[in-house]
């Protein structure tokens, strides 16, 4: 089998990547995988190392340790990288005096892509009417569309997108989401970093969350959102003690407890064995925002909240 076809089955594999600037670990022993056929959200607060990790994936920055493979090879070893990976890293990586069409033609020249494809992607992102205007006159949303057009120009099976929805209006966000979902459905590997948690919940299949360069959570969106269990009982202090004794993590909330680290069946059995009356035991799909804040607000969170995929 063609090594590229074989490699594409692996998607993006990040293994023990560490990157230090000065005495600061920007990325710290980070490992995760973005799989083909799925949209993987890459989340973290500002300065958490997302953009640096993406640049390491694309050989724009060198890792001090570890490795990243895209479609089974280091980016620099891909025979025709722009035909394999499309990337959108910066919303303003354009010369303001150049037209959108000329910007794409420059990319097409370098990638050996035809002029017809330039016109095609301009139409796909809704910029055909503005294609001959200077990019300096574009809105942020139009620049994002142009950047996305550049990313998909080579029709690549892997996409790495840094904040692609920034500056887009609701219709633009919807169209972008539909396009990415459609690409993933066709077997593409899509890695998207974003701050828009509500949008992430609608878009992604899998999540990778980092804080201070370290992995704090990864797994499917469904796993991560249903991880907690909501418990109510008249003997809440006794229940809390029993659950914590078994390794669970509890958070008091609205007269009950939110329990993490134990499966709902385990909690039920513990409570039964302890003879504690229960008024409610249910899955608790907390909002992604709530979880994200928990993962990223505590300095110790990265050690305690890791979730295997």
């Amino acid at each position: 089998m063609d090594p590229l076809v074989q490699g594409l089955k692996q998607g993006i594999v990040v293994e023990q990547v560490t990157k230090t600037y000065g005495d600061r670990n920007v990325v710290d022993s980070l490992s995760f995988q973005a799989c083909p056929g799925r949209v993987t959200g890459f989340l973290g607060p500002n300065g958490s190392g997302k953009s640096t990790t993406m640049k390491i994936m694309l050989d724009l920055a060198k890792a001090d340790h570890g490795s990243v493979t895209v479609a089974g090879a280091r980016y620099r070893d891909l025979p025709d990288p722009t035909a394999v990976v499309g990337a959108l890293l910066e919303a303003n990586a354009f010369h303001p005096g150049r037209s959108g069409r000329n910007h794409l033609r420059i990319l097409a020249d370098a990638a050996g892509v035809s002029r017809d494809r330039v016109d095609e992607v301009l139409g796909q992102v809704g910029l055909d009417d503005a294609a001959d205007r200077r990019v300096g006159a574009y809105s942020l949303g139009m620049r994002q569309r142009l950047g996305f057009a550049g990313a998909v120009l080579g029709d690549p099976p892997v996409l790495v997108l840094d904040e692609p929805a920034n500056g887009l209006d609701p219709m633009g966000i919807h169209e972008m989401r539909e396009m990415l979902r459609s690409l993933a459905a066709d077997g593409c590997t899509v890695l998207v970093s974003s701050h828009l948690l509500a949008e992430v919940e609608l878009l992604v299949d899998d999540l990778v969350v980092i804080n201070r360069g370290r992995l704090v959570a990864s797994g499917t969106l469904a796993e991560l959102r249903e991880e907690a269990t909501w418990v109510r009982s008249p003997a809440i202090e006794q229940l809390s003690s029993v659950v914590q004794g078994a390794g669970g993590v509890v958070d008091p909330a609205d007269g009950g407890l939110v329990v993490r680290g134990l499966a709902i069946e385990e909690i039920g059995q513990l409570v039964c064995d302890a003879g504690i009356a229960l008024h409610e035991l249910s899955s608790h799909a907390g909002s992604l925002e709530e979880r994200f804040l928990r993962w990223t607000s505590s300095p110790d969170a990265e050690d305690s909240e890791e979730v295997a995929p």
Partner: protein
Amino acid sequence: MIGVPLLRSELRKLATTRMPLAFVAVLAVIAAVNAAAVTWGTDFDGSKTFVSTSADQRSLIAFGSNAVIIAGLFGAIAVAREYGHGTVIPTFLSSPRRHRAVLAQYGAVATGGALIGLVGAALTVLAVALALTTTEFSFMVSTAGVVRVLAAATYAGAAGAVLGAGIGAVVRNAGGAVTGTVLALIVAPPLTVQLINDASSWVPAPLAIALAGVDPEAASVERLPNAFGAMVVLAMWALVPALIGMVTVGRRDVV
């Protein structure tokens, strides 16, 4: 080694902004200044001895030293702004082996610099020839002499552009790259000559003059190297910063 697609892409980058027009405007101004000097300028004694011989006229139209400086600034701005605007990112994504991308950049700015030299020299020749019709002297430089002046300016422009591009790749900031190029081409040479007198023939301006086959006396210099030597040394002036730029780009993260 460079790859035609990358070179085409880099040439299109240069051709799709207004920067080349700005440089053509500068060349037109320089030609106009030369024409004005011929029309209204005189020597100390009120005569026009400075255009009275073929050698004097050739010295006047030898555009090479201007070409080095102007094309140097062109190369510095063209490359440094790539980093400023972030447009270098898609370039490096297309060519993760960065030396190929940098070579393509150098190839494109060398082409642009050569055109600056050629157009600048042609405009100057034309302006001086037209201005001479207002004086008692005719245009006396032979066709072969004009061809050599044009060729010298073309070569000097290409070399200057590569030198500026090398500085731009190291500095990555248009303002800093322009300053660096001015330091390298305008400030450093006279200082070097003051420290090492024998270096006077080996700095860019006299090298470009030597390439144009200008008589040393007409150019008011003691001596000039032969054309081949001038060509090699001018190439070294360009290649050293270009090589430093290429190594630096290969080793540094794109942030």
